[in-house]
């Protein structure tokens, strides 16, 4: 299972506490995680990426295994530690606005 950590406002919107787990087919990529996330929690559609272009929203970032993955292509396989659930996939709201 993939572990995903959402920013607090989206945890509230999705009505979850703490991190969530998702079943994601191989290969595990940003796109496959977001597809599974939006399928399980449709209220998150549009909050992380544009619903038409599927581009990441500007102030949303993806981190995993100590790396900023936000600029990686969405179909690049993620580190094995994400795929095995050893490390969570972190979705982070950028620190912006002072």
């Amino acid at each position, binding site marked *: 299972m993939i572990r995903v950590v959402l920013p607090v406002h989206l945890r509230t919107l999705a009505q979850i506490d703490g991190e969530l787990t998702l079943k994601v087919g191989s290969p595990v990529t940003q796109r496959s995680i977001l597809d599974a996330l939006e399928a399980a929690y449709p209220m998150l*559609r*549009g*909050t992380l990426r544009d619903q038409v272009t599927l581009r990441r929203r500007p102030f949303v970032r993806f981190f995993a295994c100590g790396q900023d993955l936000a600029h990686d292509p969405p179909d690049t396989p993620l580190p094995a530690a994400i795929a095995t659930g050893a490390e969570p996939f972190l979705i982070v709201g950028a620190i912006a606005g002072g």
Partner: protein
Amino acid sequence: MSAIRLLVGTRKGAFILTSDGRRKNWAVSGPHFGGWEIYHLKGSPADPNRIYASQSSGWFGQVIQRSNDGGKTWAPVGNKFVYDGVPGTHQWYDGTQHPWEFKRVWHLEPSMTDPDTVFAGVEDAALFRSTDGGQTWQPGAGGMCLHTILLDPTDPARIFVAISAAGAFRSDDAGQTWRPINHGLRSDYIPDPTAEVGHCVHRIAMHPSRPRVLFMQKHWDVMRSDDAGDSWHEVSGNLPTDFGFPIEVHAHEPETIYVVPIKSDSEHYPPDGKLRVYRSRAGGNEWEALTKGLPQSDCYVNVLRDAMAVDLLDPCGVYFGTTGGQVYASCDAGDNWSPIVRDLPAVVSVEAQTLP
């Protein structure tokens, strides 16, 4: 006894203020959607417990929330706002052409007859309509925002909208086609002061018994039309300044209107530090300052375009919210005011529901 429910949108959440018909003691519920900007909430005239809310964030975009129980519980509905066809471009601040793109919903206007039908006025300016309770949105028209939507209670095909830095527009075919209705407006801050479009209209209002009579608070100037917007004339009269944002009509007196004069477009606060609502009982031109209960010194808040509302009781209740977080109420048509709450986040919108 009847009751009043105020739907208050703020920069950091929604609040619901309720009172019985005496309008003296208020209960405060909220924040709902804490931390999110709530540009507007509005209840369905056909089912007051059906309420729509525009929830947005610079980080996470637009969410539309719906309540079926008067705001006790909420559920997110559809938030896919896609412009019709290729929306084209407009000149951006740096001189380059930039595509029109959806940013947020400024105003939600439920149908007068169908709780599942609701219009959304959005930035960049466009009008969307949902006929399934907000689950899906169809574009109806397209750096500006479509902030005012007025539905003609006598003609379902007639819709008025207003767009910042563009003007007022009318459809007589339920949104299929639109035409500008800005004849008579004069804006000295644009290249052609009497241009057909380009006027910064801040809000328009109508009394439901006279849908051809419209009142407008423009960037500067308070205006009136007696022919459904075909022509406008100025009714600023003796106002201390005719800049402002909201304009509202008394529930039972179609010639009684309210504005909140603001010093200027570069100083978004009341003149002389005095928060004054101005009332005209003559449909404009002759205005009186309403000050009892409002701060008359050192007050530098603003009142935004959707942050004033009236209830349907007699005498008419008038309400407005400020960027300082106060929501003021008058239960005697503006003669006397008192704060319901003083310390909310900056208030963006106030709507009043009169409940049986």
